[in-house]
């Protein structure tokens, strides 16, 4: 029965032009976004190193004249001078386009070592705004060691498939994807009102019908999404001439510290997060459809929920219970932005997944109770009536 109902719902969904159009839009997001992205000029590693070099000169220029008067000051001065030299050498190695990666890593590791030593010496004489933060030094160190360990190339083409897909997933994360799923599922239950005398009396449990809709909408949406990812990757490959390196490290926050994972793992986690968010938003849409019985309200209330933590935060109300809503912007969870903002090292993707599951479970429970409630009321009334008799 469930399977046959599922097949009927499939037929309806396949005839639904709105959902087909939205499916095509999400599918085209990846190739179209590439079109935009390839017209931008993302900052390359060599640009970053040049900026870093300028920063080193700026430090040197601003060091006090009497710095060398103490042994610590003398050591700091020597290290800063050495660091400036190492950064310039790194720029040179990068200009050799992969021929001198080993040297780049060697100097990079030394550079980080010196920076840590300068920290130990208390950054004497270095202007506050020019001090390289410790977590930045540690993450760069880890990145270089990861590249060395996995024998990877330093310079990567930002337009190659692997790099482009990471940027595309980061762009899709948050309100864009949330709004998309809201639109997609805005009539997930409410359309039945237009066909209620056909659909109302099926001999199938309410929750089974709801689960079948969610499963179906999920498969339909993800089919378009996966095709879109493949298309986007292919477009990037055709344009840049390279698939890039899917084992290249990407920094994420995990278990309270910054760690590196491969691009492929990052994409895998992104897809997993999108899947979990899709399921959550589908059940949320079911609930709002049942509650408001209107597709537009579904979208408006959904958006309201999404921005609720920011609105409350703007008026000085920080409610940590609402944090799971923010996890819908998973790229900020992965990058550690939330962990840093909330000063909570526990906030990583595992933590976000756990909470997104909890919220989904809560929504399913509320839907279940909402359906069961009339029966409970009926039994209660019957009990009262019999008591009176």
């Amino acid at each position, binding site marked *: *029965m469930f399977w*046959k*109902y599922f097949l*009927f719902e499939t*037929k*309806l969904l396949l*005839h639904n032009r709105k959902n087909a159009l939205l499916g095509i839009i999400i599918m085209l997001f990846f190739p179209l976004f590439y079109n935009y992205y390839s017209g931008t000029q993302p900052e390359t590693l060599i640009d970053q190193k040049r900026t870093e070099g300028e920063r080193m000169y700026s430090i040197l220029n601003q060091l006090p004249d009497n710095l060398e008067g103490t042994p610590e000051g003398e050591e700091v001065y020597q290290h800063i001078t050495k660091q400036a030299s190492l950064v310039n050498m790194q720029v040179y190695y990068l200009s050799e386009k992969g021929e001198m990666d080993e040297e780049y890593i060697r100097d990079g590791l030394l550079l980080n070592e010196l920076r840590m030593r300068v920290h130990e010496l208390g950054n004497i004489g270095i202007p506050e705004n020019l001090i390289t933060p410790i977590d930045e030094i540690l993450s760069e160190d880890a990145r270089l060691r990861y590249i060395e360990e996995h024998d990877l190339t330093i310079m990567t083409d930002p337009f190659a498939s692997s790099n482009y897909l990471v940027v595309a997933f980061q762009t899709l994360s948050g309100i864009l994807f949330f709004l998309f799923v809201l639109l997609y599922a805005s009539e997930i239950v409410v359309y039945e009102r*237009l*066909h*209620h*005398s*056909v*659909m*109302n*009396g*099926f*001999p*199938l*449990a*309410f929750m089974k019908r709801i689960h079948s809709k969610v499963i179906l909408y999920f498969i339909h949406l993800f089919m378009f999404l996966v095709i879109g990812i493949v298309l986007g990757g292919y477009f990037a490959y055709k344009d840049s001439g390279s698939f890039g390196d899917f084992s290249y490290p990407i920094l994420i926050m995990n278990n309270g510290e910054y760690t590196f994972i491969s691009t492929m793992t990052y994409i895998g986690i992104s897809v997993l997060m999108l899947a979990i968010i899709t399921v959550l938003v589908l059940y949320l849409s079911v609930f709002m459809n049942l509650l408001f019985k209107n597709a537009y309200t579904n979208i408006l209330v959904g958006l309201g929920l999404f921005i609720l933590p920011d609105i409350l935060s703007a008026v000085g109300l920080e409610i940590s219970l609402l944090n799971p809503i923010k996890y819908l912007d998973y790229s900020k969870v992965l990058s550690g932005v939330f962990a840093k903002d909330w000063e909570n090292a526990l906030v990583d993707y595992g933590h976000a997944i756990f909470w997104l599951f909890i919220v989904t479970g809560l929504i399913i429970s509320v839907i279940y109770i909402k*359906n*069961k409630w*009339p*029966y409970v009321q*009926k*039994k209660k009334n*019957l009990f009262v*009536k019999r008591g009176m008799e």
Partner: protein
Amino acid sequence: MLTLKNISVKFKDKVVLDDLSFQAEKGEIIGVAAPNGTGKTTLFNVMANYLKPNAGEVIIDDNYTYKSEKQEIKIRKRLTTFPDQDDLFDELSGIDHLKLYGNMWKGTTKHIPQIVGKLNMGNYVKNKVRTYSLGMRQRLCFAMMAAADSSIMLMDEVMNGLDINNVSLISEYLIEMKKEQKLIFIASHLLENLDLYADRVIFLSEGKIIHEQRFGRGNDDYIKISLDPHQYNRLINEYVIPDNHLYIASHLFCLPLKGMKQAEQMKWVEQLLGLKEKELSIGPLGTVEYYEKHYH
């Protein structure tokens, strides 16, 4: 098979069903006659649990009520309601709808070609519903009920938009369903048509069943003739008319034959035939006559 126990439905101060009780058995077709707004659809909605009554309960097969979802599903397996033709899916074909109902209730679609054949739908059933006329849609709705083949069927306005041929086709189908021991409730404005297949017709007014007409169970015969009020007044002035006569809706004069001797019956026939150009008939009162009696 289906029992309504003290059902009451109120919308604000308006009582639509008032402590209504009723019992129906399998193999029965029960007509529900009442003007618009007197609770026919409400009664059907309560039976299908689309509307929760303020009081009372619906009991199916002496066992099942709508008190839990589990029991409701058991009832749903036994009960179907007539779809509204506006609720059909325009972008799907008739056969898609039939397969849906066949699959959901019978778990098969093997019987569908036979239904399509019986209801002469073969020439259009594979087209999209948006191309159907009102009559075609109505036939499809009926075919969906047939495809579901449940033991209880609630059919509200089943004959809407059908031409004479199709009314006849569906009437025959209903009689066949009755033979298969289905319990069918029919609300229809084609009152004469109900006489063809209904075992009884209930008349609703002010939330209660005010009359239940049973067919084929020794109903009393009447001499029936249409008279305008002027003719009726002349008749009662000229003759001594039995007190139990009826003058329905100011146009139908009905004289009960029960208790009349044959000679007296003949005398009345002759006297009434004297009113030229009027058609006289003898027989029990039909649904139309009772309807007019109760609502006009």
